């Protein structure tokens, strides 16, 4: 009888500790999953920085995530065809976000707000985006560079399982 009581007690205590352990494990796994998702997102955004900081788009090499409006205009024109094998991604697009606009107007053009720098035309592409500054040199007018807020959108090809 006494052994039974003791065995019951041990089982009860173990059961209790297992429950507590499961509770902690649940929280820990949740943290790991959240952390992994956050790291993956940060990694994708970091790779956007590589594109934004390329001399072909960058306004000033000392400032990260700052695009040159004049370079964007050039890269969206006929000149972009020469760069088709250059881009390590499926697509590169830049939108002007602020000042806000009513309709999307593709560049080059008057009052345009959307620069399609490169589009490979591939399907099954996942897009990542991040905010950037779009700056224009105004020094000839005696002023500092004028910067607006834009969004760099880069498409990455998703590999399908065969």
């Amino acid at each position, binding site marked *: 009888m006494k052994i039974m009581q003791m065995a019951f*007690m041990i089982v*009860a*205590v173990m059961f*209790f*500790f297992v429950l*507590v352990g499961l*509770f*902690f494990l649940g*929280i820990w796994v949740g943290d790991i999953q*959240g952390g992994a*998702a*956050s790291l993956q*997102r*940060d990694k994708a*955004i*970091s790779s956007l920085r590589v594109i934004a900081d390329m001399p072909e788009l960058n306004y000033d090499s000392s*400032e*990260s*995530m*700052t695009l040159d409006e004049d370079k964007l205009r050039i890269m969206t024109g006929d000149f972009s065809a020469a760069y088709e094998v250059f881009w390590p991604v499926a697509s590169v697009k830049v939108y002007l*976000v*602020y000042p*806000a606009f009513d309709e999307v107007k593709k560049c080059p053009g008057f009052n345009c707000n959307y620069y399609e720098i490169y589009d490979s035309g591939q399907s099954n592409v996942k897009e990542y985006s*991040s*905010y*950037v*500054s779009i*700056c224009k040199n*105004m020094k000839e*007018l*005696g*002023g*500092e*560079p*004028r*910067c*607006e*807020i*834009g*969004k760099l959108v880069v498409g990455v090809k998703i590999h399908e399982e065969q």
Partner: protein
Amino acid sequence: MRNNKGQQEMVGFVLIVVLVVVGLMVFLVISLRDGPDESDSLETSHILSALMKYTTDCAIVYEPDYDAVEDLFKSCYEGDRCSNLGVSACDYLNESLSDILGDLMESEASVNAYQLDFFVKEDDGTQGLLRIDEGNCTGNVLASQRSIVSGSDSLVIRMKVCKVF
């Protein structure tokens, strides 16, 4: 004697349970306190960088020497006025930030709330100068902050964005 031993076992068991519950409570309090707040994010950092570089229409001294938002924070702290617009830098900053952040966050479907704080660091703590916020925060809180120097004072701009993934 037998009853006494049973009581001792009961007391021992209760003690173990109480100990574990106390440990659990401590863990819960710590995890809740450090939980969703202030997870430094690259995403928010980029929003804040783009915001700080945005050139406003406020010229403190002469046109076309317009202030970027970062300069406007300093001008606001120093009590300057936009000479071309005839308004105080702080009023213009408040209006511009609400406008810019409203438009930026409108384009982000997953963002349900945001908050931007502008405060000055002092020896005995911080003094809030401006706060712009909107929405009810649910989901993950992503935060980032920038420090700028005005004279001998350190100004801090902190941004929090609530995002549902």
